[in-house]
Every structure is written in C-alpha cells, then in structure tokens.
C-alpha cells in the first residue's frame, strides 16, 4: 500500500488507524492533527451534498441528513474534482437507506433536486420556439412522426408523491400543511434563462414528456400519455413550448 493509499483510506474511514510515518515538531500523537484532514474531507463533502439537496435536508433535519451523507460519502466518494457532479447516485442511495424509509418521498425529492442541479449546469442550446413549430402544423399528417427532444437543460420526474408541491412549499409556494404527499405528481425541470424552474405537469404530462425525452415520436408519446384519460395533447405541447422545454428541431424525421 502506498503512503497516499494509506492516508486516503484513513481519511474516509474513522475506524482505520492514522497512517504510519506522520510526525509533529513537538512529538505529540499526530491523531489530532490528522483529524483536521478527516474533518475537512467530511465537512466539504457533506456541505456539497447539503448545498445540492437542500429540501431533502429540510425534510429530515440537518443531523439526520449529515449522518446519512457521511454513510454515503464513505461508500461513494467523488470520482471527479467537479463537485457539481457529486451526488448523481445519492437519490438511489437515499431510496435504499433504511432509516429514511419513514419519509417515503425523500428519494424522489433528492431525484428532483439532482435534476435541478443538472439543469443548472447543462449545455446552453436554442429552444424550440413557437415560430419554429408553426410550419409543422401545416402538415398535420406528418405530426405523429415528428421527434421533439427535450432541451438539454430540461428534464422530467414522474413521482408517486407530491414532489412539486412539497418542493414549492419549501420555497414559499403554498402551505406545507395543505400538501398531500401521497398525491402523484410529475415535475418538469427547466432553465429558461439563468434560473432553474420546477413546474407541475398536467395529467399524463409526465408520461408524455418522459417519452419525448426518450426520443420517441410525437405520436407514440401522445399514445403512451393517453393511458391517463385526462391527458390533453394540445395543452401539454403548448406548455412545453411556452416554457422553452423543447430543443430546436434536429430533423423532422418521419417513421
């Protein structure tokens, strides 16, 4: 084991002994000094997760969140110095984290917050404007074969819980006490200008937008979303266009 391997192992796991070969000018036990590094690493990474998943933290409290984050970071240290990419697998970890089971919507909140972070740093790209789609409407027969992709900064989350309402209530939109957390909601995350927005999609909208994100045709996406009898294609398409959630057309490929 190299010196740095021993140092790294002891940094992440407090049960691993302080690496050999550390000294101090006054001959003291280096444990307390090494602890500065341990603390720096843990504080930095739990801080990154707390910054990236703020509502997830509010839902369980700071102490619980930090304890959960410490378990996570020991098993999943960052694989890159780009810390805005750290936490991609945190929602899946939360879903499997036994002590968090009593907050069944916690993992979906973490998924929503991850999508927000990904949206913030996503590539800049032109959106599909209403003017772009007008010519397509002139040929209704071709519409079902059209492939509309989501903008790089747009994403959809279909949840069995009221993630959008819960997220909104933690940002001053609506009262938390009035949210039924067990009402299914689908979130649309997007970055129309410089700020990331979270919108609640209408019935069937989650299926529809997720199908578009999977690059199915407009016809297939509409057919899938029609599993929800309240789905309204025109309403959903207008919403996605109005908020700049669709990317510019790459081609009007037909089946």
């Amino acid at each position, binding site marked *: 084991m*190299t*010196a*740095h*391997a021993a*140092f*790294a192992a002891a*940094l*992440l796991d407090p049960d691993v002994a302080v690496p050999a*070969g*550390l*000294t*101090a*000018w*006054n001959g*003291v*036990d*280096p*444990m*307390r*000094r*090494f602890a*500065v*590094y341990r603390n*720096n*690493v843990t504080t*930095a*990474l739990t801080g*990154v997760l707390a910054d990236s998943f703020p509502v997830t933290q509010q839902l369980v409290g700071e102490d619980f969140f930090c304890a959960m984050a410490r378990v996570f970071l020991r098993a999943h*240290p*960052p*694989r*890159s*110095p*780009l*810390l*805005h990419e750290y936490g991609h697998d945190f929602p899946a970890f939360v879903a499997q984290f036994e002590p968090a089971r009593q907050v069944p919507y916690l993992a979906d909140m973490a998924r929503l917050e991850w999508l927000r972070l990904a*949206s*913030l*740093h*996503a*590539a*800049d*790209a032109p959106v599909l404007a209403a003017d772009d789609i007008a010519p397509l409407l002139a040929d209704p027969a071709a519409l079902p074969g059209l492939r509309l992709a989501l903008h*790089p*900064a747009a994403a959809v989350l279909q949840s069995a819980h009221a993630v959008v309402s819960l997220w909104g209530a933690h940002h001053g939109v609506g009262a938390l006490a009035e949210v039924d957390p067990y009402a299914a909601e689908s979130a649309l995350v997007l*970055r129309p200008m*410089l*700020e990331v927005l979270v919108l609640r999609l209408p019935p069937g909208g989650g299926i529809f937008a997720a199908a578009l994100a999977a690059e199915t045709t407009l016809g297939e996406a509409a057919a899938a979303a029609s599993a929800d009898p309240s789905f309204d294609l025109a309403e959903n398409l207008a919403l996605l266009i109005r908020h700049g959630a669709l990317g510019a057309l790459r081609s009007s490929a037909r089946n």
Partner: protein
Amino acid sequence: MTLPIETSSSSLRSESACRGGALGPAARGHLPARAGVGLKPQHFQDILDSPGELGFFEVHAENYMGAGGPMHHWLTRIRECHPLSVHGVGLSIGGQEPLDAAHLARLRILLARYEPEAFSEHLAWSTHAGAYLADLLPLAYDGRSLRRVCEHIDEVQMALGRRMLLENPATYVEFADSTMSEADFITEVVRRTGCGLLLDVNNAYVSAVNHGCDAAAFLAALPLEAVGEIHLAGFAVDRDAAGEPLLIDSHGSPVADAVWTLYEEVLQRIGPVATLIERDHDVPDFATLAAEAGRAEALLCRMAASTAEVCA
C-alpha cells in the same frame, strides 16, 4: 502598471460591457499588481455594477467546468472587464499517480475559453485510486516526490502551453520520510520546472505555527523572485494533543494581523505583486470583501509609490 479606473456604474448595462477597451488583448498577459478577491456567485451583480474597484478576480477552475448555464454567463461578462486568475484545486499535482488526463484536458479548454492572466495549482494531492478527496493533502518532501511533482508540473505546463504558479500549502502534519524542508523543496521545483510561485502568506504562517517554525525565516528561504501572485486569507485556531496552537486554513474570517505584517515584509522584499483576498466560508457582502482588498491595495500603492510608479 496601473489600469484605468472605470467609474461609471451604468456602463455595464449595455452588451458591449467595458468602455474604453481597458482590457483589450494588449492589456492581457499578466495580473496587475493590484488587489483582487475570489469570485463568488452572490457578488456577480455587484461586481458588474462597480467595474474597476478591484484589480482582478480569481475563480476555482473546477467551478466553471460545467457544460453551460449561469456560471459561464456571469464569468464571461465579468471577464470582459477584469483581469482573471484561474486557480485549480483538483489536479492533484502532488499525487503518487499519473495526472488525470481528462481533467487536464478540461483545464486546457477552460483556459482557452477565458484566457486568464494567471493559472495556479497547489503543492498538494487530492485524488487517489480514482477517488477525489476534496481537500489539499500533504506530501513527504523527498527525492521521489520532488521528481514526481516536477514531472507533473512539466506535463501541466506543456499541456496548457503556459507557465503555471505553484501554491505553497497549509499543512497540519509532517512526514518521517521527508528529507528536505518545504522551502528547499519548493525552491528546487521552481528551479527545475521554471514554474512561478503563488505565495500564500496565510499558508506560510499557518504551517510555520503548526510546525514550530519561524514564518519570516520560512518566507526568506522561498524563491521569492518567482512570486507571480500572493494569497491572503484568514485561519481558525485549534489546539493539538499537547495544547499547542494548531491553525486551520479555513478561509472563513478576515486576514489576521500577523499575516498582514508578513505580507508587508514580503512586499518590501519583492515589490508590489497581484494579491488576492481568499474567502470561501462565511463570505461577507461584496463591499466588506472589497474593503479588505482595499487594505492590500493601499499597501501595494504605497509600495508602488516608493518605487516611483504612479498609483491610481
């Protein structure tokens, strides 16, 4: 060299950003010998509203490696009007493993995009076996690590096509394996690679206290002629197992008086050099941070005046 001070607070409302072309290509090349601060998102708008107040801004490279979005939007606008220093924290130059080629490639793209006047990294390591440890970790100062650090710096300077500045670390432990002092190690790295020195006066003070050394003697033993930029920051005070002070390089408080004193001594030796106030925790409002930078700027001006240069 002094830069024209932009006084109109409204000049940045327009898309053309900087009036007067104060920072056209000819003005780029090296950081001005003025004070700057670390660029924080909460200060973006304040900075655009008060151009010229500070000499330069510094960003952590890794914070601007996302594909797009507001971070690039704001940095692009601020860079149009201010000299820029890009400061890497993730290259792991002191690591025992090869440099991360993908990360070096990202750096090359970032520097090509923003063309900063300076690029710096740390005499430390942060990655091992693919795990990024989010801290600047210490290394033993021996012949093997000297060769490795020099190879890494050669590789960086080759890949980036520019001279880099290497920052002296703040450390909390020493190594039984070390065969040379930190100052001798840094001197040799600078001599072999031709890199410059980012002199972190706070780190020098923190390390000197933590290792029972004299900070002024440590500074005097460094290759000060290679200094291309200075960092100043605040530390926190802890105690080691014997109750001796253990200073933590926390970047969470104003610069300490002892560090200001050392800074003045350094300026007297080497003259005015671009100086950054680093603040990463408990970040105050922009006016407060700019005022602290103003203290460094005043010292730089006094130094410049004493060497017969005119201060704006």
